[in-house]
């Protein structure tokens, strides 16, 4: 069964450093999402992406965050200058088309900012 994959599984970084989290969507999926879960809190929506542009973003997704799909396969989330509060589990999700409500999730990247 096709799966969404994410790399790395874990990342430790220093405050102020840039990090890039990578996601490989299911091959025929067109809509992509990033969510995060701070330890002990709810899974929160960050951003959705379709046709090489952002469809929707939450208040969390400020200027420090960016997304792109540079090579038509990887879907990346970049945090420009990490803060301690960016420490969280980051999940990528994908759906096939506009009408599909089921989002398929990757295993997540656990980011720790020191």
């Amino acid at each position, binding site marked *: 069964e096709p*799966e969404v994959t994410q790399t790395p599984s874990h990342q430790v970084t220093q405050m102020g450093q840039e990090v890039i989290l990578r996601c490989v969507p299911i091959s025929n999926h067109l809509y992509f999402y990033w969510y995060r879960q701070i330890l002990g809190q*709810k899974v929160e929506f960050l951003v959705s992406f379709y046709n090489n542009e952002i469809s929707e973003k939450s208040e969390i997704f400020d200027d420090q965050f960016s997304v792109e799909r540079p090579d038509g396969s990887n879907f990346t989330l970049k945090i420009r200058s990490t803060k301690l509060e960016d420490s969280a589990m980051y999940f990528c999700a994908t759906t096939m*088309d506009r009408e599909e409500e089921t989002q398929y999730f990757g295993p997540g990247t656990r980011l720790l900012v020191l």
Partner: protein
Amino acid sequence: AQSVTQLDSHVSVSEGTPVLLRCNYSSSYSPSLFWYVQHPNKGLQLLLKYTSAATLVKGINGFEAEFKKSETSFHLTKPSAHMSDAAEYFCVVSLSGNTPLVFGKGTRLSVIA
């Protein structure tokens, strides 16, 4: 605005006994509702979904959930717990396709031998 409340942060059951994980939702429109499960070091796996068809929804691994509009609930049940059911379970609501999912805080299910 949509929201989801999972009433228990942790549920512990004995193997072979029934499982009940409770979820209440709030939505201005007719929502779609989901249960996802997360095993350690794994992604979020879809267990089942309700999308305005039958109110009793059957999912994988013997789980099912019943949509009760009058109670705004979507509780997850299983007649007999198995050790492999131990995981984190998330109740999720969606307004329509291609909209962000809204998650509950999760319920950790422990199964005791």
